[in-house]
């Protein structure tokens, strides 16, 4: 088996037995990026020198007790701050921005000896479902480079699918980890809100944003998830909860008798017959593993997209007010006075979709519209949260398709914002409710991967990872890699 196909634990074992070194491993993945990224464009920045320095340090410190991620290269979504390394959030407005500190998740990974191999492409400020909103050009799906990898963490998902990095970090605000994981045929986990620190993560919608891991397999994803989890006193929404632990033994637990709910609002006549067929086959597999499938209802599902596209832009319009041409952006309009600096810097620096969402957010928060839109959306959000809490009184896990279709063509939905927003129809509810959710590969349609979404109780990532692992080991879809 090629070294590019090996799991984190296999690579870690090779490093500990001195069968390879972190420098060799890092060079292998850097070569892979050099060979394939002209077709994929998963990376916005690869700092070879820095990556090899970190790998050299990792080699010096590696011992039998080292963390499984010690010496392992990791790709990082470009909305996550990396000290001294250009972080653009996929935006022209941060083209020259060099962070002066690391995000907590990066600090945690450096502390265990992981190697930062590069910063990945994404939709500008994580706003998008296709990676086409990146100011630096779209990322391409490794399974078919004429198609999108999903978004907004498209680069992080494509990098793992293309074997350019063993694992990567993304962020999820409305589906930005799970949707690209599904479309790229890998595993992606959005943790419970409050589980992973947001300190040092470029804010899009602060009450929804979560950092999460991507991996080829559930086990790789679990190891990275554990490494980034935990309380952080620099994030006031961080929760004091026990992490899942570095051992992955819990993944192998029998799922016999576990109740898996299928919400009728997700799986109905509106679902395409091909996606429905694949989903039904996935349910049968879960049943064959001993799980009990139960029909449930999440009554406010139909309102989730509307609720999301009020709450998220409202928070974005406030969060992005900081990009004013004064503190850390390119400045325009200097000669026309202070107000023109704000207007011209922002208009030139932000792309169309970001401007659209800022306008929408400003509108729903403005006098005369606040009650009708924003306040109403908060009420609906509480109702959606209650739907999940009620459902989890009856079942242990909820299963849905991750996306309503396979990866679409680049440009196919670009001219219609509302059509693009509907690509997230199955993933937007869980950031609103705060529940954890993941996508695991569940087959192919027209040679393009599909994802199965598993949603868990708050802070019960272990159970969805356990179910996903059993499903993955039974189906083995993870063994198929795109030809590049």
């Amino acid at each position, binding site marked *: 088996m090629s070294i590019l196909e090996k799991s984190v634990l296999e690579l870690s074992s090779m490093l500990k037995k001195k069968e390879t070194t972190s420098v060799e491993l890092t060079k292998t993945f850097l070569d892979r990026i050099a060979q394939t990224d002209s077709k994929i464009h998963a990376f916005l920045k690869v700092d070879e020198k820095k990556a090899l320095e970190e790998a050299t340090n990792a080699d010096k410190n590696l011992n039998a007790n080292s963390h499984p991620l010690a010496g392992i290269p990791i790709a990082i979504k470009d909305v996550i701050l990396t000290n001294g390394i250009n972080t653009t959030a996929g935006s022209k407005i941060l083209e020259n*921005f*060099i962070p*002066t*500190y690391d995000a907590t998740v990066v600090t945690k990974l450096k502390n265990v000896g992981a190697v930062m191999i590069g910063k990945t492409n994404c939709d500008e400020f994580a706003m998008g479902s296709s990676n086409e909103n990146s100011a630096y050009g779209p990322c391409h799906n490794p399974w078919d480079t004429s198609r999108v990898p999903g978004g907004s963490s498209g680069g992080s998902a494509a990098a793992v699918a293309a074997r350019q990095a063993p694992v990567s970090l993304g962020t999820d605000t409305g589906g930005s980890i799970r949707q690209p994981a599904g479309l790229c045929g890998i595993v992606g986990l959005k943790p419970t809100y409050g589980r992973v620190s947001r300190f040092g993560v470029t804010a899009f919608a602060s*009450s929804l944003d979560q950092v999460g891991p991507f991996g080829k397999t559930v086990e790789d994803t679990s190891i990275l998830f554990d490494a980034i989890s935990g309380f952080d*006193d620099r994030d*006031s*929404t*961080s929760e*004091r909860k026990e992490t899942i632990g570095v051992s992955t033994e819990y993944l192998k637990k029998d799922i016999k008798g576990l109740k898996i709910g299928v919400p009728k609002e997700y799986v109905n006549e509106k679902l395409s017959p091909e996606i429905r067929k694949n989903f039904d086959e996935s349910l049968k597999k879960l049943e064959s593993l001993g799980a009990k499938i139960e029909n449930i209802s999440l009554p*406010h599902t139909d*309102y989730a*997209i*509307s*609720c999301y*596209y*009020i709450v998220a832009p409202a928070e974005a319009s406030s969060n992005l*007010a900081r990009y*004013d*041409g*004064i*503190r*850390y*952006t*390119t*400045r325009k309009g*200097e*000669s026309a*006075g*202070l*107000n023109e*600096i*704000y*207007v*011209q810097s*922002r*208009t030139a620096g*932000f792309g169309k979709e970001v*401007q*659209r969402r*800022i*306008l*929408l957010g*400003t*509108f729903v928060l*403005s006098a005369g519209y606040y009650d*009708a*839109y924003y306040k*109403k*959306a*908060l*009420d*609906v*959000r*509480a*109702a959606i949260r*209650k739907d999940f809490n009620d459902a989890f009184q009856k079942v242990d896990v909820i299963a849905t398709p991750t996306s309503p279709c396979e990866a679409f063509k680049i440009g196919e939905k670009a001219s219609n*914002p*509302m059509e693009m*927003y509907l690509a997230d129809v199955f993933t937007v509810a869980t950031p609103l409710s705060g529940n954890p959710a993941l996508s695991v590969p569940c087959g192919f349609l027209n040679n393009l991967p599909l994802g199965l979404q598993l949603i868990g109780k708050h802070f019960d990532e272990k159970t969805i990872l356990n179910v996903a692992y059993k499903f993955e080991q039974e189906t083995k879809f993870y063994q198929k890699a795109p030809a590049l």
Partner: protein
Amino acid sequence: MSKITENEILKVAKLAKLSIDSNDLSKRVAEFNDILTHIEKLNELKLDDKSIIKETPHLDMFDDQSRPSNTIDQVLQNSPSAEKPFFYIPRVIEGGKS
């Protein structure tokens, strides 16, 4: 709910410190109204279930103690125009020497 007009979107843009190109205005208004039509679906809902508890954001209270943060040099490092310890901006008060 009434549709947003060109004048209204220009007012929102002013509040958001953005400018909209006049050639682009009618397209932006159409896109905006398409999105509003969809999100106004929420108006169908009558939420009178008292069991729905409004979310209160979780906030961890910390001791008010000073601790290391960014230095002035670090804060100014990414500014397009700064000289320690200030950000430079054009004069905002009318009159006087410039």
